[in-house]
C-alpha cells in the first residue's frame, strides 16, 4: 500500500478539534462521577453492615467539604447523563410506529426524560416522607 508514499495524519488530540467531539468526551466523562459515586455508595453499604458507629462516620464523611463539592458536581453530572442518555437512545432503536406515523427521535427523548423525572421524583418523595 505504501508503495505510493501516502501520508497518514496522527490522531493525537482528535477530540479537541471539533465541538461535537468535545461534547462526546464530556458525555463519556460522566462515567468518572458515576464510578466514584458508586464506590461511595458501596462504602455506605459496608458501613451500614458494620454498625451504627461506622454508618455515622460515613454520614459525617458525606458532610466533608470535598465530598460535598463532589456530590454537588455529581448532581449536575448525573442530570447531564440523563439528558445525554435519552438523546442517544433513539439511535439504538429500530423505527417505531404509533398511530400510523413514525415516532420522532425527539418524542423518544422526551418520553425518557419524563420517565426519569417520575422515577427520580418518586425516589425523593419516598426519602423525604
Amino acid at each position, binding site marked *: 500500500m505504501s508503495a505510493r508514499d501516502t501520508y497518514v495524519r496522527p490522531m493525537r488530540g482528535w477530540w479537541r478539534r471539533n465541538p461535537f467531539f468535545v461534547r462526546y468526551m464530556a458525555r463519556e466523562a*460522566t*462515567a468518572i462521577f458515576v464510578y466514584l459515586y458508586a464506590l461511595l*455508595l*458501596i462504602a455506605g453499604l459496608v458501613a451500614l*453492615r458494620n454498625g451504627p458507629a461506622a454508618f455515622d462516620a460515613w454520614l459525617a464523611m458525606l458532610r466533608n467539604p470535598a465530598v460535598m463539592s463532589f456530590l454537588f458536581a455529581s448532581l449536575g453530572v448525573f442530570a447531564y*447523563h440523563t439528558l445525554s442518555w435519552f438523546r442517544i437512545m433513539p439511535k439504538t432503536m429500530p423505527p417505531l410506529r404509533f398511530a400510523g406515523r413514525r415516532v420522532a427521535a425527539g418524542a423518544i427523548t422526551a418520553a425518557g426524560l419524563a420517565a426519569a423525572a417520575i422515577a427520580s421524583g418518586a425516589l425523593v418523595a419516598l426519602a423525604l416522607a
Partner: protein
Amino acid sequence: MKKRSNAPVYWSLFGAGGMLAALVGPGLLFVTLAAPPGYADALRFAQGFAGKAFLFACASLFLWHAAHRLFHMLKDLGVRVGPGSWMLCYGVALAGTVAAASALLAIGF
C-alpha cells in the same frame, strides 16, 4: 470467519447501568445531599427485599456502566489498554459487586 465478540455481555451491563443511572441518578444524588437516612432508617430499608434489590442494582450496575465507558474512554484518549486498564475498570466493578452483595446479605432481613 471472524471471531465473535463478547462485548454484548459488557454492553448489556453498561446499558442496564446507564438506564438505571439515567432514571434514578438525579434523585439518588439529591437524597444523598439533602436527606441521607440515619442508621435506623437505612438499616430498615436495606433489610427489605426491595431495598436490597435497589441498593444492589445501583451499586453494581453503576459500576459496570462506568467501567465500560471508562475503558473505552481510555482507548479514545490513546491509552493502550491492557490488563491494568481492565482491572481498573471491570475489575473494580467485579470487586464492588461482590462487596455490595456481601454487605447487603450480612445486613440480614
